[in-house]
């Protein structure tokens, strides 16, 4: 298994897109922190950029990479290797590379300008989001044979998680504003890894006071050890479930 991971990572690190991604993140993070003199304000500004860019790049790049390495995967399948090993190695390689690019691009500016708990949470969330969206891309790419349709699906998935989901939540919120739905909102936010990350970081920088009663409920939940444990578990599920489904499907697929 390690061997394939090694070759996947070596192949990925040679691609220019990953390098450009890391450099763009570095420049973005560096400029945000040099404009904002308050570190926490910098983290919030950076948060909005990261929650938009990281999922997008992770899911699109991974999908394109998977379709482009279809022949390579075919070659590996004809060798004495378990299909599960092949698929999970590619997942590990892709997830590792995306997380590494993120950690280098955003990690260095954060350590330099904002070495605070909120900065660390931002780094952690960005890394997990990279892995989550690689996992979702693996699922999309294995389900759909056609490259154009597969990339289309992953763009739709990103659109859903980044924009449509929030619109739906807002709609529900306004429709049911007369009812006590704050606890329900916590459950709903678990359905979107981007939302979980946003709430976690906003609570860290004490912006929850701005969010009124819902903010207080969030604080009550995410501020406790149990709340954090459940959140971490949900994020892990977001990594494991798509990866598990895609592996199961890959094991039965015709190449």
């Amino acid at each position, binding site marked *: 298994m390690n061997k394939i991971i090694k*070759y996947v990572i070596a192949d990925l690190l040679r691609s220019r897109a990953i390098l450009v991604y890391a450099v763009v993140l570095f420049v973005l993070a560096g400029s945000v922190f040099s404009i904002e003199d308050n570190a926490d304000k910098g983290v919030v500004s950076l948060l909005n950029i990261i929650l938009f860019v990281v999922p997008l790049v992770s899911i699109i790049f991974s999908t394109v990479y998977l379709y482009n390495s279809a022949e390579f995967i075919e070659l590996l399948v004809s060798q004495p290797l378990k299909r599960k090993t092949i698929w999970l190695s590619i997942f590990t390689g892709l997830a590792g590379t995306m997380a590494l690019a993120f950690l280098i691009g955003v990690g260095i500016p954060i350590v330099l300008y904002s070495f605070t708990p909120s900065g660390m949470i931002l780094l952690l969330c960005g890394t997990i989001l990279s892995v989550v969206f690689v996992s979702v891309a693996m699922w999309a790419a294995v389900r759909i044979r056609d490259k154009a349709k597969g990339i289309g699906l992953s763009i739709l998935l990103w659109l859903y998680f980044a924009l449509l989901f929030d619109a739906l939540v807002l709609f529900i919120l306004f429709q049911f504003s007369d009812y006590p739905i704050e606890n329900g909102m916590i459950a709903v936010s678990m359905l979107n890894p981007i939302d979980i990350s946003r709430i976690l970081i906003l609570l860290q920088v004490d912006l929850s006071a701005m969010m009124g009663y819902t903010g207080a409920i969030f604080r009550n939940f995410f501020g406790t050890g149990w709340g954090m444990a459940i959140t971490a578990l949900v994020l892990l599920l977001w990594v494991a479930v798509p990866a598990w489904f895609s592996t199961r499907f890959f094991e039965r697929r015709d190449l």
Partner: protein
Amino acid sequence: MITIQHISKRFGKLQVLNDVSLTLEGGQCIALIGPNGSGKTTLIKTILGMVVPQSGTLLFKGNPIGRQWEYRRDIGYMPQIGRYPENMTIGQVLDMMQDIRKVPEAALDRELFEVFELHTMLDKRMGTLSGGTRQKVSACLAFMFRPEVLILDEPTAGLDPVATELLKDKILAERNKEKLIVITSHVLSDLDELVTEVVYMQEGRPLFHKSLDALKEETGTDKLGKAIAKVMTNEEPTKGVSV
């Protein structure tokens, strides 16, 4: 060595393999021929476990392959179009395969590597190679680990005449070592001197499986191409396949 029992495979509405049963023995060089879309490549991919059939079983040395993977240690496969990661060099691809197969350096068969003179271009990236050079790399990889079964899908397509002859010599040498070799090709003249048995596929099922000598005797010809043409005209006089 390989027993195929009642294998059927459908892609959507298209019945690609239709109740195929074949027995392939060691020491034979078997030509798998048939028109385009007759299921040759799908049959090969089924043997390799790349395509999972809807029904039927495949035995490798008497054991059903199911979802096993260890048996592929004994198979060398040369795909129709060998494509590799574009950023990797020839040397890295060879190293990777050695890593995967875990065969010690001394036990490797480097004959094709030398005769194709691949050592002069170890640093070239796969993405920049011509189709023929890629075929050479594929051939080299198929033979390198001394497998007992060799499956060659259109091995001579894209190779220059010199390389074709070198590859044919190598195939003959391996055939004499009691290995099972399965070749598909549309260039029947290439197969003439190599094969000992012929499987003719049509519309997803083998029409016949005979030794080359028996086939030539039955049709009264001395060339594989003519023999096949004759069989085809006899089988389907209505379609009027001409020589």
